[in-house]
């Protein structure tokens, strides 16, 4: 897993590459928790363009952060889902609660 974070005020763009399974889930969770810990970042744009694989371990981390952000009025937007990743996200119900955008600029402009 590779992770690259860019914070813009209240919003952080998190670009995730590689594979997100049980092996990577803890590191991914720690990275997101660290980003959200001080309460300054309330919106996440998750750019998963480089993500080749995800399963329930990775989805659990995203859903956990969604719940935490949702409680304080924040949200998570998704960008760059590959077909296989989108399929998993559809099945999990994540796409019903998190908006998906074609690119980062659109996600940021749509007032995350």
């Amino acid at each position: 897993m590779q992770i690259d974070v860019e914070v813009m005020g209240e919003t952080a763009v998190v670009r995730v590459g590689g594979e997100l399974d049980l092996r990577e889930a803890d590191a991914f969770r720690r990275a997101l928790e660290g980003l959200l810990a001080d309460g300054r970042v309330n919106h996440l744009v998750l750019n998963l363009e480089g993500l080749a694989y995800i399963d329930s371990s990775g989805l659990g981390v995203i859903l956990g952060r969604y719940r935490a952000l949702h409680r304080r009025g924040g949200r998570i937007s998704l960008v760059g889902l590959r077909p296989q990743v989108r399929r998993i996200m559809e099945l999990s119900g994540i796409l019903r609660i998190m908006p998906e955008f074609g690119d980062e600029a659109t996600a940021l402009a749509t007032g995350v």
Partner: protein
Amino acid sequence: MAIKNEMRLEFPSRPENVGLARVAVAAFATQLDYTLADLEEIKVAVSEAVTNAIVHGYGGGAEGTVTIRAYLHDDALEVLVEDQGRGIDDVSRALEAGYSTDPERPGLGFVFMQSFMDRLEVDSAPGRGTRIVMYKLLSRKEQ
């Protein structure tokens, strides 16, 4: 069903072996004419079964052993994932969507196994480990 080929893979219950397991079984499955989408689904199903074995069967500890056996039939892949861990108290409840014993885990493992494979059998009892048997039929060519 005649068996055309078979494989067996055994490894310690370490998270880094989840990737090994799914890639090995998917590579084995390419001996049948599966689509790329089918192979991706096989990978997820195997990952979920192995993840369950490590996280739930062995409670995240690395001292357990996970065994995978896979068989190629004429028109199907059969995959068995076994652990000798703590087992599942209530299998039918574990198979319900969203059922989870851990707030950080969304209860989707069995949902993906059921959605992506054509048949799923779960044989488990408390203290006696868990055996998951999954079949992926070679049928729907959607190209």
